[in-house]
């Protein structure tokens, strides 16, 4: 359990948020031309990183807006928060 700094509402308890999983998975532009392997990659395969992960969160019991978080999954420490559409911070790899 940790605090998340919602870019719209400020710091709130994690239980107010819902996790949207890995961020920056782009929906295929031409879905009709995708092979089964490419569909599987898009739908199911996840990096599931132990360490620094870029992910989406929704402030579901607050402003209900989506945003991105950089979090270290090995200790749940949040390193950065940025809005949807913004470029991910480059200092984390």
């Amino acid at each position: 359990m940790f605090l998340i700094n919602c870019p719209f509402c400020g710091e709130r308890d994690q239980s107010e948020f819902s996790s949207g999983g890995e961020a920056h998975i782009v929906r295929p532009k031409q879905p009709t031309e995708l092979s089964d392997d490419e569909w599987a990659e898009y739908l199911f395969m996840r990096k599931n990183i132990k360490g620094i992960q870029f992910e989406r969160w929704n402030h579901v019991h607050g402003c209900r807006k989506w945003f991105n978080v950089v979090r270290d999954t090995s200790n749940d420490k949040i390193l950065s928060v940025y809005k949807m559409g913004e470029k991910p911070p480059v200092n984390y790899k």
Partner: protein
Amino acid sequence: MKNKYSVFSLIKNALSQHENWKQAWGNPEPKKEYEAIIVGGGGHGLATAYYLAKKHNLKNIAVLEKGWIGGGNTGRNTTIIRSNYLWDASAGLYDHALKLWENLSQELNYNVMFSQRGVMNLAHNLQDVRDLKRRTHANRLNGIDAVWLNTEEVKKFCPIINTSPDIRYPVLGGTLQRRAGTARHDAVAWGYARGASEMGVDIIQNCEVKGIKRNGDRVEGLETTKGFIKTNKIGVVAAGHSSVIANMAGLKLPLESKPLQALVSEPVKPIIDTVVMSNAVHAYVSQSDKGELVIGAGTDSYVSYTQRGSHNIVEETLKAILELYPIFSRMKMLRQWGGIVDICPDASPIISKTNIKGLYFNCGWGTGGFKATPGSGDLFAHTIANDEPHKLNAAFNLNRFVSGDLVDEHGAAAVAH
């Protein structure tokens, strides 16, 4: 078996104040090369090694464990064993395991304290009733024992349940699998370790895998904290850390690793002689032989490798427990812990070859792997030894996420697993 446990060995060792028991398994340094290496010394990994040695005659094998054996999810689960899954593929897999459980203490000459005390799954709304009745029928068609109990029968089977119609989620009935139950989780890991070690398997603890050496599309060995070990067959059974190992081989898996929690109370006299699970309110409880209530909570919603989990999850579970069992209202909880579970999108496991030759994965057991330990080990050993799946785990291949032939047990099983 050289050091067979029996009433005679017990008497003999009693005469020397139990100071001369032999070590149950060895503590060797890794050799330069093995025929096969199992990564992960939990119940599933040790069972895999045991059946590889016993049924497939592979003796030059090793199990690598980064911590101590059985120290991961094997030692962290709520020990529930059942096989009442909806789909045919799952029913085949889990009932295969349950049948092995029924004879496991004899097979291993090690008391795994398997206790067929029954598992009851409660229904709290009309949809639960429909789903659970359907599952009961599906189970019976697959030869798995299952009965539907109405509210009065639930009360009779477990009298401490609050079946009042006035509670927030009233008990409308439940299913019961009498062959289901619990076992001593540590004993399973120790029993398999002892059996495997006896047949010459090297169990190497405190040895973490750091990299997988590949030559084109095949594996050549493992980089570990105890140096490089050559092998051309690697079976990975690393539970929550499966993706971490997969990434070393440049492979992505359809998994998300999340903390799952459990807690135990102070020990009390026998009060509940079965296992009761409730999917809708997410509470499940049994009583250990020491007298502690063993309570399983839910997973956190986010990926995390911290073995603890959030407080609000525990709070929700205990709220549900208190409503269902008002008698527990003054119990004190002694310990709480978390384990990292690897969850598949269809809530079914993966016991499969990969597109890298010699690399096999047994993962995705999510929140319910303990019950499958013997079956999982047996089928994974078959898959590694023959480079082909057994018919019971053919459906649980990695390719199902490409073909779309998923084994969707999410809403179908009694979910809490």
